[in-house]
C-alpha cells in the first residue's frame, strides 16, 4: 500500500491514472447532467465532460505524441468554446428564470409528445 503510494508520488504519473481521472470526470459529468435538477448544476456537469475531454487531449499529447502541440491547442480552443457555451447557456437560463422564476430543468415541459 505504502509502496504504491510512494511510487505514485515519486515516480512519473502513469498515463492510465490521467485517463482514469478523465473518464471518471466524464461520466461524473454525464451522471450530473442526467440527475441534477438545477440547470446551473447541469451546466457545471457539462463543463466536467468537456474538461474530461480536455484532459484527454493534453495527456495524450504529453505522453504519446510529445513532439506536437495539437492536443494542447485543441484543449485551449475547447476551453474557449466551453466558455462561450456557458455564457450563452447562462443567458438563456437567466431568461428562463425570468419567465418561470425557477431554474429547475423539470419545469421545461411545456412542449412534449
Amino acid at each position: 500500500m505504502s509502496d504504491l503510494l510512494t511510487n505514485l508520488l515519486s515516480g512519473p504519473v502513469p498515463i492510465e491514472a490521467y485517463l482514469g481521472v478523465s473518464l471518471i470526470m466524464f461520466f461524473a459529468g454525464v451522471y450530473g447532467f442526467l440527475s441534477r435538477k438545477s440547470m446551473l448544476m447541469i451546466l457545471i456537469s457539462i463543463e466536467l465532460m468537456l474538461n474530461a475531454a480536455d484532459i484527454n487531449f493534453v495527456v495524450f499529447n504529453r505522453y504519446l505524441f510529445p513532439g506536437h502541440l495539437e492536443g494542447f491547442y485543441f484543449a485551449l480552443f475547447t476551453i474557449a468554446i466551453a466558455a462561450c457555451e456557458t455564457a450563452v447557456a447562462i443567458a438563456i437560463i437567466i431568461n428562463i428564470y425570468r419567465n418561470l422564476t425557477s431554474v429547475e430543468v423539470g419545469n421545461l415541459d411545456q412542449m412534449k409528445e
Partner: protein
Amino acid sequence: MDYSSFLQMREEFSLLAVMVFLLVYDIFAGEKGLKYFQPVALVLLTVHTVLNCMPRDAFEVAGGMYQYVPMQTYVKSILNIGTIIVLLQAHKFLNEDANRIKRGEFYFLTLSTLLGMYFMISSGNFLMFFIGLETASIPMATLVAFDKYNRKSAEAGAKYILSAVFASSISVFGMSLIYGSTGTLYFTDLATLITGTPLQIMAFVFFSVGLFFKISLVPFHLWTPDVYEGSQTNITSYLSVISKGAAVFVLFTLLIKVFGNLVTQWQPILYGLAVVSITVANVFAIRQQNLKRFLAFSSISQAGYILLAIISGSAMGMASLVYYVLVYMFSNLAAFGVLSVIENRTGKVQMSDYNGLYQTNPRLSFVMMLALFSLAGIPPFAGFFSKFFVFSAAAAQGYYVLVFIALLNTILSLYYYLLVIKAMFLNKSENPIENIKSDFPVRISLVVCTLGILLVGLFSTIYNQIAVLSFGM
C-alpha cells in the same frame, strides 16, 4: 508564411465581410438608414452568393486545416440560397415593432452560424471542424431563444443549448480518443491511421453522435420537435434546412474521407439509424396537431432518407445527397414559409386552424400543397426525383431491403402529408383563417421555392452539374 493563400478561402471571407459590414451598418446607421437594413443585407448576401457560386479547383489552406473540394461550393451555395430565403421570410417578423431593434442581431447571429457551417464543411482537421460546429450551434441557441418574452422560446433555447452542449461534449470526448489513438487530427492523415481498433470504433461512435444530433436522427432527435415548436418559425426553418443540410454533407465527407476504413462498422450503424429514424419519426408525425412539431418529425424522417444516400458511400450517393438537400431545402422552406406567413399574422399553427384554408388563401394552400407533395416524393415535383435518386444510390449498392423499408415508410409519410392537404382543401371550417396578403419578400421567397419545386426535378441540368463534381468528392 504566405498568408496570401488564406485569401483562397473566398466564401468565408466574403461572408465575414458582409457580416462585419452589417454589424457596423447596424450600429452606425441612423434611424433613416436602418430602414434599408434588410434590403441592403439581402442584396449583399445575394451578391455574396452569386460571387461564390462557381466551383474552383481543390486546394488546401493552412497546412490542411482547411480543405476545399469543388462540391463544397454547391453545398455552400445551397446554404446561401436557403439562408436568403429564410431571411426573406423573416422580413415581416423582423419588421414588427418588438423585433425591429433586434434585426442586426438576428442577421449577425444567423450569418455566424452560416459561417460556422462553412468552416465545418471545409474543415480538414478536427479542431477546425469542432470550431465550425460550435460556431454553428452556439449562436443557434441564441436564435432559438430569440423571442425573450416567450416562455416557449426560452424553453426551446434551454433545451437546445443543453442538448447541443451535451452532444458536443460526447463528440469532443470521441475526438480526444481519436487523437489519442492516432496522434493526429488531420483528416488526410487519419484516413490511413484509423485501422479499426476497438478504441477507434468507440471513438468514432462517440464522435459521430455529435453529428447525428445535428442531423437529428432517432434516438438523438428528441430535442428536435420541442425546439422546432418553441422557436420562431423562421428560425425553425433555418434549423431544419440549413443546419441539417450542412451536417449531412459533413457526415458524408467525414465518413468517406476519415472513417473510410471503418466502412463495415458505419454502414450497419447508418442502416439501423435510417430504419429507426424514418419509422419512428413517421409514427410520431401522424399524430401531431401542431404543424411545427409535425414538420419537425417530417424533417427527422427526411434525414433518415438522406442516410440512404450516405450509406451507399458512392459518388452517386454524394450527388444524390447534395441534390436531396437542395430539393429538401426548397420544399421545406416553402412549407415553413407558408407556416410563418400564417403564424406571423394570426398566430395559428394547429392543423385544425388550417381547415378550409383553400377557400380563403388559395395561393398559400397551393404552395403548401406543392411543398408537401414534394416532401412526400410525388412527381412531377422535385421531391420525387431526389427521393428516387437517393433510393437508386442505395439500390445500386444492393440495399434493396433498406430501400423497401424506406418506401413502405413513404406511404406513412404520404398519409400525414395528406392530412394537412385534407385540412386545407377538404375540411370545411366555420372560422377559417382570413385572407392574408403576404408582403413582397415573402412572396419572392415562395415563388423561388415553388419554382425550385417545379423545375429542379424536370430540368436535369442541375443534377447533372452536381453529379459531374461528385466524382471528385
